[in-house]
C-alpha cells in the first residue's frame, strides 16, 4: 500500500509542479501569445464542448481511423507476401527503401491533385504515410520466423491459413506492433497536416483558423486537445498491445528470470 502511494506521488508530483509553475508564471501575463493558463482553461469548455466535438473532433478521428486501418491491412498483407518470398523481396527492396524515405507530408500536395480536397484525400494521405513502417516491419518479422518452427510446421502438415495465423503472423507480431506504433504517430501528424492544407473541418483546420484570427487562447486549447488526443491514442495502443502480445512479454519475462 505504501509503495503504491509512493509511486502515485512520484507520478503526480512533477506534472503538478509544472502546471503550477505555468499557472504562476503566466498569471499576470499581458503577452498576447502567452495568455494566462487561467484564461486558456476558462476558454476550454466554451470551445471544445457541444457542436465542435461533432463537427471537428469526430471527423478528424474517423479519418485517422480509416487511414490507419487501411494502412495496417495493406501493410501486413503486402509485407507478408514480400517477406515470405526471397525473390520478391530482392526485386522490391530498393523501390521500397526509396518510397519509405520520402517524407510523408510531401504526399499531401500530390494526393490533392488526384483526390481533390475531400475526405478521400485525407484518408489516402494518412494511409499512404502509415503503410511504410507497418509494411517494412512486417517484412522483417516474417523473414525472421524461426526456421526450426517452420520445418516443424511443414512436417506436421500445417499449411495455408493455419500456418499463416499460428506461425507466420504470430511470430512476426512483435515486429508488426513496433511498426504499428511508429505508424500511429505518423498518422496523427498527417491527419493534422492534411487538414491544415485544405479542409473545411477537423482539428488541424480549426486550430489554424484560430491562429489566423488571433484567437490565441482558443488556439492554445486546440494545442492541448491535440496533445491529449496523442496521449490517449498511445494509451489505447499500449492496452491493445499488452493484450495481443501478452504471450510474448510473458515469454520474455520468463526467459529473463531463468538465464
Amino acid at each position: 500500500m505504501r509503495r503504491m502511494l509512493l509511486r502515485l506521488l512520484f507520478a503526480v508530483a512533477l506534472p503538478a509542479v509544472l502546471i503550477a509553475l505555468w499557472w504562476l508564471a503566466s498569471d499576470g501575463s499581458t503577452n498576447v501569445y502567452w495568455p494566462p493558463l487561467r484564461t486558456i482553461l476558462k476558454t476550454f469548455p466554451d470551445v471544445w464542448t457541444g457542436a465542435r466535438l461533432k463537427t471537428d473532433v469526430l471527423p478528424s478521428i474517423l479519418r485517422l481511423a480509416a487511414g490507419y486501418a487501411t494502412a495496417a491491412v495493406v501493410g501486413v498483407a503486402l509485407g507478408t507476401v514480400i517477406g515470405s518470398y526471397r525473390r520478391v523481396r530482392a526485386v522490391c527492396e530498393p523501390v521500397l527503401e526509396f518510397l519509405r524515405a520520402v517524407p510523408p507530408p510531401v504526399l499531401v500536395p500530390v494526393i490533392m491533385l488526384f483526390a481533390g480536397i475531400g475526405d478521400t484525400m485525407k484518408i489516402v494521405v494518412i494511409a499512404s504515410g502509415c503503410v511504410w513502417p507497418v509494411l517494412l516491419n512486417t517484412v522483417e518479422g516474417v523473414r525472421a520466423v524461426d526456421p526450426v518452427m517452420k520445418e516443424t510446421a511443414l512436417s506436421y502438415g500445417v499449411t495455408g491459413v493455419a500456418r499463416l495465423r499460428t506461425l507466420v503472423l504470430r511470430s512476426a507480431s512483435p515486429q508488426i506492433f513496433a511498426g504499428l506504433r511508429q505508424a500511429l504517430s505518423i498518422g496523427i501528424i498527417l491527419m493534422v497536416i492534411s487538414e491544415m492544407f485544405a479542409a473545411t473541418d477537423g482539428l488541424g483546420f480549426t486550430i489554424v483558423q484560430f491562429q489566423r484570427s488571433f484567437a490565441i487562447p482558443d488556439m492554445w486549447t486546440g494545442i492541448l486537445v491535440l496533445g491529449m488526443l496523442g496521449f490517449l491514442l498511445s494509451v489505447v495502443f499500449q492496452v491493445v498491445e499488452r493484450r495481443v502480445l501478452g504471450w510474448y512479454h510473458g515469454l520474455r519475462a520468463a526467459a529473463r528470470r531463468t538465464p
Partner: protein
Amino acid sequence: MKGLNTALGAAGLAAFLALGEVVPRVGIVKEAYFPPTSRIASAFWDELQDGAFWSALGDTLTGWALGLAIAVGAGIVVGVLLSVVPHLREATASTIEFLRPIPSVALIPLAVLLYGTELRSVLLLVVYASFWQILIQVLYGVQDVDPVAEETARSYGLGTWARVRHVLWPSALPYVMTGVRLAAAVALILTITAELVIGAPGLGATIAVAQTSQAVPEMYALIVVTGLLGLLINVGARTVERRALAWHQSVRGEVAV
C-alpha cells in the same frame, strides 16, 4: 547470391521507373496529375541547373542538421542526468510519457505566431519531435547496463563521472545510435513539413510553390529529391552507427556472417 540480389533489385527499380513512364502515356492516369518518368527526370535535371534549388536544399539541410544536433545533445544530457541522479527517473516518468506522444505538428500555430517563417520555427518543431527519440533510447540504454560491471566499477572506487564515461556510456551507446538514426529520419520529416506548411525557406516551401503554380513535373522532381535525401540520411546514419560501434558485438557479428 549478393550479385543476384543486386540484379533483381535493379530490375525492380527499372520496372518501377518503366511503369511510371507507361501508365500516364497509355492514359490510365492523367498526364497532368502524374507525368511520365522522363518528364520528371528532365524537370529534375532543370532543377539541378537552378541556383534557387541549391539554396533551398541548403536551407533544408541547415534546419535538419541544427535541429538534429540540438536534439541529440539535449537528449543525451537529459537522459544521462535523469538516470544518474537518484529518483529523478521515477519522478519524470509520467511527465515524459505524457509529453512524448504529443504530435509536434500541434506546435505549428504557435511556431508561426512566435517566429513566423524564420529558421527558429523550423527548429522548434524539429527539436521537439526528435528529442524524445533520443531521450527514450538513452533511458533504455542506461537500464541495460550490466549490474556486475556497475558494481565492479563502484568497488574499484570509480567516481560518478568515471562511471558515466567508462561503464554507462559504452553500454548505452548502441541504443543512442539507434535513437540518432530514428531521430535523423524524424528530423527530416519535420523540417520538410515545417517548410511545407509554415513556408519557411527550403525544399518544402519550393514544393508548395510548385504545387500552387501547377508545375506538376517540378513538384514530382522535388519530391524525388526529398526521397533521395531521406535515403542518403538513412545510409549515412547506418554508416556512422557501424563506425561508432565497431567494437560492439552486434556489428562484429554482422561482419563475420
